[in-house]
């Protein structure tokens, strides 16, 4: 049996001040696997990653990367780890090439190999033309790609990426997905965090949904979606304003009370989203109920969708994901 590349057991992190950012997380990542952490702001993703990357001491619990303990064998972990944090961190006064080379040197990549590898990565990330410009002049997307190149320069066995596609345009995002897929196929084990359902769905072999410092559920995207069972039915409702819409939400709830195919009702600004088992069969009955006399619920649009990772997220966390993010705490000195 091959042992996991990342083994995390009962990890807890309580920040000074009492925030329980990570609250007993356990998971394994098998060699070659690509695990995605999906979670809302403040779920504890970055905190977990900083512990795995030997940058932060856990309050309790153990974590091993590539077989080495992150606290007692930090140097061994670092040698095998490629890391890209949520905000790209670069030396603004060094060129793209110099940025990659410095990190390569710190990882003791040999001179000839370093030159070859740097050329290769610049090419791969589409940065060859700007390799001699200062990184401080790069656009956000270019910084992101340069940061990733730095993480890859020493051919790490484990790659940990905190929101790798945050701030990329759709085109660059897809290009980066393809690149990450290729790296993953080459056998690199990967752990990444994301806010994007689509990203988790497309890229990850396995997804762990994390909320309030705990893993609430994990599995392959397909299994998680299958676990939802219900289809999602989106109803667009006619309303004269947000207050009116709020009233309609309540009305719909009332009208659908006792409807046995219905699993949940989620209010939306444009109407409601319903989770309904076997929607194809249930819709006629649904429409009959909404059409009951004496009510003014007017359905102006209807869409039926198969379960998405979005629905999985809503089911397990009770809310939708938000997309703003920040990982650097503001340090308040005097």
């Amino acid at each position, binding site marked *: 049996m091959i042992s996991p590349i990342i083994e995390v057991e009962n990890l807890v992190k309580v920040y000074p001040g009492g925030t329980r950012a990570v609250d007993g997380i356990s998971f394994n990542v098998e060699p070659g696997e690509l695990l995605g952490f999906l979670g809302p702001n403040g779920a504890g993703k970055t905190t977990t990653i900083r512990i795995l990357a030997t*940058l932060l001491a856990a309050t309790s619990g153990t974590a091993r990367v590539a077989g080495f303990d992150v606290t007692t064998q930090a*140097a061994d972990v670092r040698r095998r780890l490629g890391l890209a944090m949520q905000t790209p961190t670069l030396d603004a006064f060094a060129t793209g090439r110099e940025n990659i080379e*410095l990190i390569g*040197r710190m990882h003791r990549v040999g001179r000839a190999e370093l030159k070859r590898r740097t050329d290769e990565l610049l090419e791969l990330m589409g940065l060859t033309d700007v390799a001699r410009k200062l990184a401080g002049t790069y656009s956000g997307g270019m910084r992101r790609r340069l940061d990733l190149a730095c993480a890859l320069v020493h051919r790490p066995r484990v790659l940990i990426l905190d929101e790798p596609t945050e701030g990329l345009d759709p085109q660059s995002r897809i290009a980066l997905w393809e690149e990450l897929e290729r790296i993953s196929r080459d056998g690199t084990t990967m752990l990444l965090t994301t806010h994007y359902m689509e990203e988790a769905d497309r890229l990850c072999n396995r997804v762990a949904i994390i909320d309030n410092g705990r893993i609430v559920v994990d599995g392959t995207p397909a299994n998680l979606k299958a676990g939802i069972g219900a289809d999602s039915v989106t109803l667009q409702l006619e309303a004269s304003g947000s207050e009116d819409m709020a009233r309609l939400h309540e009305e719909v709830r009332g009208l659908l009370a006792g409807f046995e195919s219905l699993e949940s009702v989620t209010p939306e600004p444009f109407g409601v989203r319903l989770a309904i088992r076997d929607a194809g069969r249930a819709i006629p009955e649904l429409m009959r109920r909404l059409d009951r006399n004496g009510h003014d619920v007017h359905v102006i649009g209807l869409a039926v969708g198969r379960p998405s990772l979005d629905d999985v997220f809503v089911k397990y966390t009770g809310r939708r994901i938000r997309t703003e993010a920040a990982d650097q705490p503001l340090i308040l000195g005097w």
Partner: protein
Amino acid sequence: MIGDFFYEAWYLSLRTLRRFFRVPANWIGIIFFPLIQLFVFSQLFKDIIQLPGFRSSGSGSYLAYLAPGQIAFTAFFAVAWSGSAILVEYRNGYMDKLRATPIFRVSILVGELAPLFIESAIMAGGILLLSVLLGATIKTGLIGAALILVLSGLFGMAWAGTSFVPALLTKSEQATGTLSLVFFPIAFMSTAFVPPALMPGWLQTVNSWNPITFLIEAIRPLMVSGYDWAAIGKALIAIAVLGLVLQSATLWAFRRLTA
């Protein structure tokens, strides 16, 4: 083991130097103030050299008297805010990027401190050159000039602790900038402008402990008379003591910050 440390410190130092010299504002800002003092004061107080206290210093003009002090000032200015760079990188996460590589943690600090030797020496060299252009002399020639640069560089490296310690402890650029002003009077109370003989008694006492005065008084003979090994020896001891105290504190503050 020790080879690893030198390898890491070497490449991190190169990076620090690059960062310093690629921003012209860095070195222009450092040179500017001493240059203005050298130029304006040497005109303004031209005749002050007639006062008896100046004679014994051996300087033929007030410019010649002023130059050693301004060279020391330059080394002082070169490091007055040096601690903020490490702070910026602590805050923006670059230090974490380095810490996640398999290097000695202290290499990061040494990679910031060691280049200050070069930075201070080169900046001081700039003012030395400018003062020669303005009419000062260097009696001991090129070897003396090299000695002046080494002394300035060593002083800069030692003095940098006055910026690093507040930076690492307060984690605030503003605080670092403000606290560095606290040290300015030490420079102004030195023998940069007036020989000790013309100072009130309490200032003479201060200057028998002022490391900047030791530096200035080692540089002065090299420019106006000849090698004064006793003065150079005293300056080196003062710099060593200062460096030992301040840099031990820096190391402690750095370890505390990155714990």
